[in-house]
């Protein structure tokens, strides 16, 4: 087991390094000159000499491998440079925005799991019922709807029904937790809709499979109540693949967030990374993309390790490898 963990950690580290290299080079080949952007977009107004000065100040005149080595060295000590647009250290910008994004992701997942898992279990417990049919139809539609469009429609519905208006100021969680939760509920719902549908669908199909197993028949034959059969014997065994799905879906959640934060104007990382990429703000874009990808790598690693902890069978297989 220890061998397996070490190997997974090693692969994770190599992946992170690969991510860093990719992030650096993708951002460097972005068309548009950062030096021109920095010196005020009025191209032509700046002389070649001034541009050269800005370039050497930013280190853009050195060779790419040297620039990469310098950047990577700083990243290792959490120095992501200064944003060309806001003029503040990128790490500060990220630290201020990260809590919002984290909260939306967590809330979206909680909504998806709390609604999706029971829906899937009920659906599998009564296959073919009208509730089951409705759920399958809903989950198929939920998978088809783009999250930013769901967000737009949600905003429309909220305004029509409750005269809701988008908050001008988004309360940080630690200042007033309840207000922050109510404010971020709608963006979280829009982002989590897809995962809700996925989780409900997956729970249903796994539960259907598990409920057909011999040990379920044994449990029924023992005279256990249907509740105990489904919840204790069925769900326990069906939950593992769902846990995996949740882990891997973190990546998809970030993807959904990027647009949905823009729709709701939530001041999170998604909105920040879009503006950074579209404005050729290298340090900011590099930093944030690296951090998001890093979170995904860590998420996948956690799922792999959790899986071993949750299911004794995989531990044996891993040891065999």
């Amino acid at each position, binding site marked *: 087991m220890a061998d397996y963990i070490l190997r997974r950690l090693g692969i994770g580290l190599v992946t992170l390094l690969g991510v860093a290299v990719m992030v650096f080079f993708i951002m460097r080949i972005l*068309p548009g000159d950062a030096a021109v952007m920095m010196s005020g977009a009025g191209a032509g107004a700046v002389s070649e000499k001034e541009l050269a000065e800005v370039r050497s100040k930013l280190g853009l005149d050195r060779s790419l491998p040297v620039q990469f080595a310098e950047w990577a060295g700083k990243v290792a000590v959490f120095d992501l440079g200064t944003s060309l647009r806001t003029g503040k250290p990128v790490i500060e910008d990220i630290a201020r925005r990260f809590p919002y994004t984290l909260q939306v992701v967590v809330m979206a997942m909680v909504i998806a799991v709390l609604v999706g898992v029971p829906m899937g279990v009920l659906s599998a417990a009564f296959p073919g019922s009208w509730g089951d049919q409705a759920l399958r139809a809903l989950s198929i539609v939920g998978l*088809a709807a783009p999250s930013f469009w769901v967000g737009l*429609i949600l905003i429309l519905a909220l305004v029509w029904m409750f005269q809701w208006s988008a908050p001008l100021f988004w309360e940080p969680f630690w200042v007033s937790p309840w207000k922050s939760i109510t404010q971020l509920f709608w963006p979280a719902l829009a982002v989590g809709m897809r995962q809700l549908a996925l989780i409900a669908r997956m729970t249903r199909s796994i539960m259907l499979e598990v409920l057909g197993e011999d040990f379920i028949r044994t449990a029924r034959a023992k005279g256990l109540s249907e509740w105990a059969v489904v919840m204790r014997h069925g769900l326990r065994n069906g939950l593992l693949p769902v846990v995996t799905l949740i882990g891997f879906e973190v990546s998809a959640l970030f993807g959904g967030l990027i647009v949905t934060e823009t729709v709701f104007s939530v001041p999170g990382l998604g909105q920040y990374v879009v503006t950074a990429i579209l404005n050729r703000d290298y340090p900011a874009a590099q930093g944030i993309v690296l951090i998001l990808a890093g979170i995904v790598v860590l998420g996948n690693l956690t799922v792999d390790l959790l899986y071993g902890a949750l299911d004794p069978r995989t531990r044996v297989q891993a040891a065999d490898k």
Partner: protein
Amino acid sequence: MSDAGAAPAVVPAGARGARWRTLARIAREQPLGAFGALVLLVMVVVAIGAPVFAPFDPTQGDAASLNSAPNARNWLGTDAFGRDNLSRLIYGARISLMVGLGASLLGVVVGAALGIVSTYRGGWVDTITQRVMDALLAFPMLLLALAMAAVLGPSLPNVIVALAVPIAPRAARIARSSVLVLKATTFIEAARATGCSDLRIIVRHILPNTFAPLLVIATAYLGLAIVQEAALDYLGAGIQEPDSSWGLMMSGSATALALTAPWIVIFPGLAICLTVLASNLLGDAIRDLLDPKLRGK
């Protein structure tokens, strides 16, 4: 692969009637999949014949009717420039379908080729390819597509490439898992023993056996690519005005106007939902038809 599910593709030309009967039987078995295929077919026809079907020029605004509600003349209303929403929706179908089909095909073909060849070869080629794919997989799909679109610049072919980049490593992973299993089978060993070249083994023996899962993910990514294309347009990194695409119809002034003229954002979203729904239903049906475990249920 001589089962009924895949039969239409290989039935000789003389057996026309049998082919139709097979199709009809499949449609009866998979009504939802048939519905999806039908919807996609109608969309493709409408997209190709856009100049015929669109009642107005999608780029020509009518200053006399800005943001008008759906009415007898403009069935889906007009946008902030007085352009007919129905016509823009019809022309937008061209972009969505082209990008969806283009990106999923390109991504799956390139990814599968990389996955199959590197897994078959093994060794350090495989290790390096694997690590590169792992790194690519760490980026959220839309984020990678957004960065690629920004690097390449906004144009239709570039948007297709940008969306294909995150699809490729996912296709490579699927191809890899089938090739790993195939490599250990006796019929591959037999092929090698009879002196088949690597190229022949890959093309004639491995490719046909990885085709089913690849086809299934190609349909899955068709829908996803359409959604993400709309997202790129919405963020301003994709198709640009005055072209009309479904994502573009929802962006910019449309969002600001959503409260007074909600039809502008509602219809393109519904169009996306319908297209993605159709491709998902078709994908599910294909998976059921190709999966021997599910067949006959």
